[in-house]
């Protein structure tokens, strides 16, 4: 089996999902080629050897430093053809989810999106993916000769890199103006804060916090744990927090190692976005709140008393 793994980079740095995607490809067994696209792709390409890529193709061109759905799809599909790849893996990130459907059509391949498991048994690849807001899981088999999968971030673990080296091949990109008919012109960062969908720890707040000023407590704890602050739909709709922090349906889907829900009752729409987190902690006054049904640990108490105490304990533990 030959696998092409798309390794996402932004600003000359790999996203964590790049390592996850390459490592997932390596775990399937077979020959793994990784692809990096960007203005200076070759400079970072060797890092992927440590995660199991035998070869890395660096498609370098200033025109593709920023993402373009049309150009990236063309490069990924052409590289897959040239490498004779049977399987193409991409992250189910904003970029991967956007480009994968195009890649699949170009390769006449079926696509299974946002997979949380991918197993190879007896020559058959079976993907599992959550559906209906996490209330169901489907097993999916792609029936075309070539197959495309996108992998949910934070679910496939990359582990520590080995010392293995990869051979890096710089490949020229030849694009027509029409290949750039959809192109990113500018990226606006939201103040350097960590994104909920990428953070390993998310501390989310809901209505129970009673007002936007009380999110400072969450920011402090999230800061200590190197995490991000998330929000329920109710508080985003009330204008307490920006939409890019919203977790759940009509917001973002997150799978951090630790999700702390504070003053969030746990409506199905919220659970849809966070139930695949590895550990869930709930702090809520109402002991019957649905959030406790998915929580691993809970404190059925007043967030205004409990959270500062938790923060103090974390400080003690971290020696801060």
């Amino acid at each position, binding site marked *: 089996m030959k696998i092409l793994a798309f390794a996402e980079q932004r600003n000359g740095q790999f996203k964590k999902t790049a390592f996850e995607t390459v490592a997932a490809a390596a775990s399937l067994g077979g020959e793994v080629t990784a692809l990096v696209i960007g203005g200076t792709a070759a400079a970072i390409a060797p890092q992927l050897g440590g995660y199991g890529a035998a070869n890395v193709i660096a498609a370098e061109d200033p025109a593709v430093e920023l993402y373009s759905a049309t150009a990236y799809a063309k490069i990924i599909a052409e590289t897959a053809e040239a490498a004779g790849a049977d399987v193409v893996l991409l992250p189910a990130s904003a970029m991967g989810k956007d480009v994968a459907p195009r890649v699949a059509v170009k390769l006449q391949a079926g696509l299974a*999106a946002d997979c949380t498991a991918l197993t190879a048994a007896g020559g058959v690849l079976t993907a599992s993916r959550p559906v209906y807001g996490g209330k169901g899981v489907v097993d*999916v088999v792609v029936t075309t000769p070539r197959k495309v999968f996108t992998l949910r971030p934070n679910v496939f673990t990359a582990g520590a890199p080995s010392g293995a080296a990869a051979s890096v091949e710089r490949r020229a990109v030849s694009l027509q103006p029409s290949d750039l008919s959809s192109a990113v012109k500018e990226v606006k960062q939201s103040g350097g*804060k960590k994104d909920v969908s990428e953070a390993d720890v998310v501390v989310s707040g809901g209505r129970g916090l009673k007002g936007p000023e009380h999110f400072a407590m969450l920011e402090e704890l999230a800061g200590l744990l190197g995490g991000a602050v998330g929000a329920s739909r109710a508080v985003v709709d009330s204008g307490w927090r920006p939409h890019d922090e919203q977790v759940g349906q009509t917001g973002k889907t997150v799978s951090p190692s630790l999700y702390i829900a504070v003053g969030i009752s746990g409506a199905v729409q919220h659970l849809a976005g966070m139930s695949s987190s590895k550990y869930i902690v709930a702090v809520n006054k109402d002991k019957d709140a649905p959030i406790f049904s998915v929580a691993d640990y809970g404190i059925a108490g007043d967030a205004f008393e409990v959270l500062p105490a938790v923060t103090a304990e974390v400080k003690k533990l971290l020696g801060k």
Partner: protein
Amino acid sequence: MKIAVFVNHVPDTEAKVKAGADGRSIDPAGVNFMLNPYDEFAVEEALRTRQALGGEVVVVSLGGDANKETLRKALAMGADKAVLLKDASARDSFGVASALADFAKEYGAEIIFGGKQSIDYEGAQVGGMVAELLGWPSVSVVVKMEIKDGTVIAEREIEGGHEIVHATLPAVVLAQKGLNEPRYPSLKGIMDAKRKPIEEKTPAPVEARVQVTALRNPPAKPPGKIVGTDASAAAELVRLLHEEAKVI
């Protein structure tokens, strides 16, 4: 401008998910269906585009007769026409995209709106596939847009920020929450929608590329540990997170 909007008819968010007799798809008994929430933003943006640039809005849905309810809702919001691509079989994303792309070509669509994903299968595949099949650019997860000199200038959400994307028309635009505030259908809109015809077409068959082999409920989580009911439980909670879960 000829504006097409793809709308999907999906189980509502409160629906209980249970596999039907085939073990692969949802048992529809007792499940309420509705217009996919993200598609509401798409319909609204289409109506605003019509208001700004003139033209007509056609809403299209693929499925069985039940989808007419969702088409009528879009008509009630103000769409001019509705088309049902009648096929009650469970097509995969490519099968749906093929039918929609064929329709867009035949209709002569100049811009297509859709939601960023449907809330049933959540694959976020169809819009991008339609664009690729038509050879058009596309922008997904759009929270802001304008059309200027034949180009869609859109802002899309990414991790930790936004991208400003330029896409030349014709193009596919896939809406995220925040793009607009969808209008409620007026009483007159609802009455008018009842009278508007829904055109039915039979889409060409397409071979499936993906097969669902099983639908199951995720394993039930064992009941969590209630560590306490006040601040005195904080130390124990942090200890568990550190020693048992090993996440701090």
